[in-house]
């Protein structure tokens, strides 16, 4: 029986299909996001790596300027910069307060809001309001609350610190951490609420049959059941915490008092934008990225192990 050779076009089609898949039009649908990702995240990220090895500064289009290669000088400078050390220390203090408080408070509140309590919808909305409130407005309220003649000092009376909270070197980072916790809590409560729906009711019934009370059930059923959500909350809050900027910018007038609330991202802004040293700012930024990656990896290792 004679077998005819396949047509050349027919031979190419499977290879094209292998390359592009069954539905190549899918690439068109994802293209806008891929372009967005490349333009807004990937390109600036790789360009910042390039900048970090140069004495780079922003110049007018067409301007002939000298931007010499400086090797690792920007990284060396960052590692030796006492202000960068202070900023890293500040952000560590911030994370040590913000992350555990966020996890515990968001988990407890989500559990409470998941139960059949009166005014549940109202409370769910109320905890979300700060998250969607403009930072400038929220900061104004906190400035008023924690200012010298503010409500907190009036209530605290003789216990109020001197100088007052936001200009007090000891208290300023804890107050910022609490502010950020309060402002972001709504999102994390939502994440936990969604995760709570995935915990089988039978587990609570089984715990109850075994004699577990509410607190015991929370500890042995809810907390382990929320572990994937907790991992997400921890990693998200570490990343947002490491990007702390608005608060030292608005709440403490540029990282005051005496740089005790300055954050690494605020330093990036000051060096890169105000002082036009984006090469140095890029080096600091990349060291920060490295730090966040390490912390996130540790979090995954600790929280994901069985």
């Amino acid at each position: 029986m004679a077998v005819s050779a396949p047509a050349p076009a027919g031979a190419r089609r499977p290879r094209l299909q292998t390359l592009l898949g069954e539905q190549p039009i899918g690439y068109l649908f994802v293209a806008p996001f891929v372009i967005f990702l490349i333009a807004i995240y990937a390109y600036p990220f790789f360009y910042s790596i390039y900048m970090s090895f140069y004495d780079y500064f922003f110049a007018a289009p067409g301007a002939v300027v000298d931007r010499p290669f400086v090797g690792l000088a920007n990284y060396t400078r960052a590692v030796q910069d006492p202000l960068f050390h202070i900023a890293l220390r500040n952000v560590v203090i911030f994370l040590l307060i913000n992350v555990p408080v966020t996890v515990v408070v968001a988990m407890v509140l989500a559990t409470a809001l998941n139960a059949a309590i009166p005014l549940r919808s109202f409370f769910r909305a109320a905890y979300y309001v700060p998250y969607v409130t403009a930072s400038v407005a929220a900061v104004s309220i906190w400035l008023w609350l924690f200012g010298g003649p503010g409500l907190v000092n009036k209530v605290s009376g003789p216990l109020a610190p001197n100088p007052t909270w936001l200009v007090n070197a000891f208290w300023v980072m804890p107050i910022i951490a609490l502010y950020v916790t309060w402002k972001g809590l709504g999102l994390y409560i939502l994440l936990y609420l969604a995760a709570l729906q995935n915990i089988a009711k039978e587990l609570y019934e089984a715990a109850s049959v075994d004699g577990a009370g509410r607190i015991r059930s929370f500890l042995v059923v809810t907390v382990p059941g929320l572990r994937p959500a907790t991992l997400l909350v921890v990693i998200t809050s570490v990343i947002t915490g490491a990007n702390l900027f608005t608060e030292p910018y608005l709440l403490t007038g540029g990282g005051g008092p005496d740089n005790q609330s300055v954050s690494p991202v605020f330093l990036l802004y000051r060096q890169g934008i105000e002082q036009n040293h984006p090469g140095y700012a890029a080096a600091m930024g990349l060291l920060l990225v490295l730090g966040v990656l390490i912390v996130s990896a540790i979090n995954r290792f600790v929280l994901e192990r069985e």
Partner: protein
Amino acid sequence: MRSIHWASLGGALALILALAGCGGSSQTSSQAASAKGPIQVWYSNNPEEVKWGEAMVAGWNKDHPQDQVTGQQIPAGKSSEEVIGAGITAGTTPCLIFNTSPASVPQFQKQGGLVPLSDFSGANAYIDSRTGSRAGQYKSPDGKYYQMPWKTNPVMIFYNKDVFQKAGLDVSNPPLKTYDQFLTTSQAAVAKGGVRAAIWPAPSSEFYQPWFDFYPLFIAQTKGKQLVENKQPQFDSSDGIAVANFWRQMYAGNLAPKEPAQGDAFATGQAAMAIVGPWAIAQYTGKVNWGVVPVPTKNGMDPAQIHTFSDQKSVGMYSSCKNRGTAWDFLKFTTSSANDGQLLELTGQMPMRTDLPGTYGSYFQSHPEYKLFADQASRTVEVPNVPNSVEMWQDFRAAYSKSVIFGNQSVDQSFKAASDQIKTLVSQ
């Protein structure tokens, strides 16, 4: 399916070609220098200057139908300097910006964002004759003008007459000449005047804040020195340390608060005094019964000899400008004697022009409250035009915050360290 791929490829190529078309221009800078045609300008966004800016644009456009000027308020941002810096990088600056901070000029110049005005025929002579000997402060290290000194707000001490009266202080001749007098007066104002603070300079860490606490008093105390002269920091001196220790006493005694004020502390009656220029009069009118005196010096000085910080704003011509001939003509038009007079009339701010009281005698006769500012305007000192200017001020502010505002280090130690840092910065 294939037609979709080709369409995508075609679209992408079109986009690339369109983007490529955005860059580059065949016009050389020498052609641009004489080119005439429409231009765009930015001016400040306070109501008084907007009114002036609109009047200038309308006045010019009436007589120059071929070379029309479009004016707009400077786009919103944290500061004009950041907006302008971003505009330079993006190539979107207009031809002229009537709000260019002299402290940012070295940076803008390094970015290749400014056109040297000295390259225009007769420009140096025009600037020198209009501004007099003060103009020299605005020259860049290469000897050229990259900015036209435009208007000044000489910084002085405003005081609330009602608060002073309540505190039993002399209202017409307040004891504010020496540091000791200033401290005693401040204590009385806080104790008996019903105010929270004697004076409330912003204690925050922005690089420009020294211009409204340390620098005016330093200039006065040193009879007109800049922070850095001939690449040598001047603040690490007995005069600089005396000024810093004066402010340190103000903060230590809670006469000047360490936390930022909510709103304008002087206008809202929270502070008895303010250290600011005449632009603020519009904010105080109808709210505060104010008086004004020169900044204090350690042992007191004849007011006619006291210098202060200029709080000057310049006009810059930006390198993105194509029709620079028109831009230069418009710049001269807006800084003519008549239009400087209109600036004074509409904003109360002092044009950088010699002999203000003589040139605008009728204005000062009808506005006697501005006479002192006009007199003070002839003795103003600018920020030094040095490399890394913004970084220099930021370093100085850090040292000042540490030692003066928060008292965490002695002024001597802190200023010595800052002086060493700044010496390196300005020598680069």
